[in-house]
């Protein structure tokens, strides 16, 4: 099912369907996470990922208009070469992942393994530092997103309305902007 | 400290002068250069001929992690090149017309180049040597490019720099390789000379070093940058550029390639390849000079031939040959500037550099003709003038190595009068071609030329003044 979803992601022409099939993949994976006794991750996957992020995607797509990918673009040979290398890469990975001798597992109590409290405790003791880092990361991402998506008002005399005349942007040696 | 002054003075002076108002710059540059010459001369006079090792040595730890020291010193070989360099710098400065555009920058660069050359001749630490070796390319490049003659001086400059770099960067690998291969982790030339690496490694190292030096000298067939560069170079620059920089390559052979790699033998002995190339250079340079109509190019190729003699003498690997080579370095350093100067002056007056389009100028400028014949005769190695002794000794050395080399080299002696006399007679003798009136040599030009010509006679009549101080060569274990 996950594989099917993945194939769907890369084959559907409409972005929407790609997103949906990605959701499919995620849900499938989340189930696997549960099997692998990672409850919290399971939950997070369902809620945050399949939920929030994907919805965000859908919004953007809706905002930008669900343009079907035109049948033929540039770079004819691209798909074939891409496929070729992908296969090569998969084969390599496969051969390397075959016959892996695993390490002996450290003994851990499977009862607590992966539970929410346990995760929480780990997160705020041993993983304090990475946790803080993620917070900074998100903060920065937020600021960036805000900056980028902020309506540029002409008062700042900054990049106001430059969108209307991209050609001026770089000292006047641009090719004309790509037209639809 | 003395030696440091010798290279530091022109450098600082040059930097200052480059930002001075042009009309002062020449005076200041002259003062700087003459001061330097004075110091160099003082060193030469207080030099102790009986000493067997480097003198006036200075040693300061520079990059101790890699055992790189700031080591300076002179011996019987380098002292002469240092003095020559200082002298020619003075003449180059004096030969610079004040009217030239950006004369101050020009003079500054000239001084900087002189400083770099002085450093090359005085450095006795391999890395320091390399630093000077490449640093002097920078002023040379700018001189060629910003002040060059001809339609595309930039091209000649780039060609020169890239070609030289191709060699010297490989030499950098050699420097590092020597440092690693000897296992002693030192860059001190004196020490390195006592611990040659294994022949197989020597084989490779010698190759890279010799390549760099061969390109710089230049040695046949690595000389193709020379015509372009010399053609593009302004005359005052040529005085040091042709007069000294070429010697740096030969000096490198003598100071580094031979002592550090006494037997670079694997399936093939480099010490036989170089002299063969040298002989080829002698003959080839002479032939090319014969074929040239442009006087400047003719002189350029003649200097290829003469450098051939020098390298031949060095690789005679015996005292006569190498002392002759050093002697010849000095001689050529005196003769070639004079040649270029006079050719330039004649071309200025006649309006062309094509020797076949000239003729009969001797009647119009008798003094010029007289001096010109002296220089020409010195160039073709007439006894009684300086070049003869050098060529005689180099050939003697070559003969002792193997007669064939000397015999083939002697062909150069026979060809020299052909092109040199064609140069002189084509310009000065025969029926006058150009009718317009021409002035004779000016006093200032005469003053420039006088020291050179005097030196030609002095060294020609009493060469021992040089050879007696070169006893170091015999003792430095150079001649193996």
């Amino acid at each position: 099912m996950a594989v099917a979803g993945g194939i769907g992601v890369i084959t559907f022409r409409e972005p929407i369907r790609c997103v949906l099939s990605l959701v499919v993949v995620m849900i499938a994976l989340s189930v696997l996470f549960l099997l692998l006794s990672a409850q919290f991750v399971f939950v997070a996957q369902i809620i945050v990922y399949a939920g929030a992020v994907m919805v965000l995607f859908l919004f953007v797509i809706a905002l930008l208009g669900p343009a079907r990918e035109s049948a033929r673009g540039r770079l004819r040979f691209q798909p074939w070469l891409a496929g070729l290398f992908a296969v090569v890469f998969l084969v390599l990975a496969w051969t390397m992942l075959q016959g892996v001798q695993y390490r002996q597992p450290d003994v851990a109590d499977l009862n607590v393994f992966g539970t929410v409290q346990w995760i929480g405790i780990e997160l705020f003791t041993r993983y304090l530092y990475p946790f803080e880092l993620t917070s900074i990361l998100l903060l920065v991402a937020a600021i960036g997103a805000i900056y980028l998506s902020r309506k540029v008002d002409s008062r700042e005399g900054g990049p106001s309305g430059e969108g209307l005349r991209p050609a001026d942007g770089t000292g006047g040696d641009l090719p004309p902007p790509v037209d639809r | 400290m003395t030696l440091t002054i010798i290279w530091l003075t022109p450098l600082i002076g040059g930097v200052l002068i480059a930002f001075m108002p042009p009309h002062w710059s020449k005076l200041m540059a002259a003062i700087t250069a003459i001061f330097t010459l004075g110091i160099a001369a003082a060193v030469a006079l207080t030099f102790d001929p009986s000493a067997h090792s480097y003198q006036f040595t200075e040693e300061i730890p520079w990059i101790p992690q890699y055992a790189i020291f700031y080591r300076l010193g002179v011996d019987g070989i380098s002292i002469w090149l240092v003095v020559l360099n200082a002298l020619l710098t003075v003449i180059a400065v004096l030969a610079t017309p004040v009217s030239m555009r950006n004369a101050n920058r020009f003079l500054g660069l000239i001084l900087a180049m002189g400083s770099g050359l002085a450093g090359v001749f005085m450095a006795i630490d391999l890395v320091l040597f390399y630093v000077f070796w490449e640093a002097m390319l920078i002023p040379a490049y700018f001189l060629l490019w910003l002040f060059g003659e001809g339609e595309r001086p930039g091209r000649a400059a780039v060609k020169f720099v890239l070609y030289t770099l191709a060699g010297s960067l490989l030499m950098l690998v050699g420097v590092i390789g020597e440092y690693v291969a000897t296992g002693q982790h030192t860059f001190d030339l004196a020490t390195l000379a006592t611990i040659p690496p294994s022949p197989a490694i020597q084989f490779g190292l010698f190759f890279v070093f010799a390549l760099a030096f061969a390109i710089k000298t230049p040695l046949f067939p690595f000389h193709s940058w020379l015509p372009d560069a010399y053609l593009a170079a302004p005359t005052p620059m040529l005085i040091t550029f042709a007069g000294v920089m070429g010697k740096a390559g030969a000096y490198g052979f003598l100071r580094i390639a031979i002592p550090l790699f006494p037997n670079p033998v694997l399936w093939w002995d480099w010490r036989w390849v170089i002299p063969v190339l040298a002989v080829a250079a002698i003959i080839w340079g002479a032939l090319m000079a014969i074929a040239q109509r442009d006087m400047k190019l003719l002189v350029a190729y003649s200097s290829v031939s003469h450098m051939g003699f020098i390298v031949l003498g060095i690789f005679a690997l015996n005292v006569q040959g190498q002392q002759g080579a050093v002697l010849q370095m000095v001689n050529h350093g005196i003769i070639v500037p004079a040649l270029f100067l006079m050719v330039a002056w004649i071309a200025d007056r006649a309006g062309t550099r094509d020797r076949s389009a000239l003729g009969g100028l001797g009647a119009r400028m008798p003094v010029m003709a007289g001096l010109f014949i002296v220089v020409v005769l010195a160039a073709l190695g007439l006894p009684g003038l300086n070049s003869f002794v050098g060529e005689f000794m180099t050939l003697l050395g070559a003969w002792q190595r193997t007669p064939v080399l000397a015999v083939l080299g002697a062909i150069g002696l026979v060809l020299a009068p052909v092109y040199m006399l064609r140069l002189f007679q084509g310009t000065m003798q025969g029926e006058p071609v150009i009718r317009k009136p021409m002035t004779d040599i000016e006093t200032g030009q005469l003053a420039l030329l006088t020291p050179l010509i005097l030196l030609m006679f002095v060294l020609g009549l009493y060469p021992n003044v040089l050879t007696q101080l070169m006893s170091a060569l015999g003792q430095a274990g150079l001649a193996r």
Partner: protein
Amino acid sequence: MSTLNIGGSQLDSSWFLLLGAILFTLGTAGVLIRRNPLVILICIELMLNAVNLTLITFSRQLQNPEGQLFALMVMTVAAAEAVVGLAILVDIFRVRDVEDVDDLSELKG
């Protein structure tokens, strides 16, 4: 909790790993083939998911928490990347409609 006791058995773990590899490759291929920048972004998400699967598998197999937490971090990062990416794309779409990433070929040479 873990009633279906499959953890730790070699076969299964490597099965999970191979699934991860396949998904990762699919994502890669998607990035290479698709032309819509949004879809490319989605494919990258797919790759990251594959990684998550791998991480969790190891975490379970080694019975070592780091994997899961790493997976969480990756998730967060993926989210952040998605946000920023979408923002940038939106900014671009303000100026011009780019349904083919190859339209972004003004810089070349």
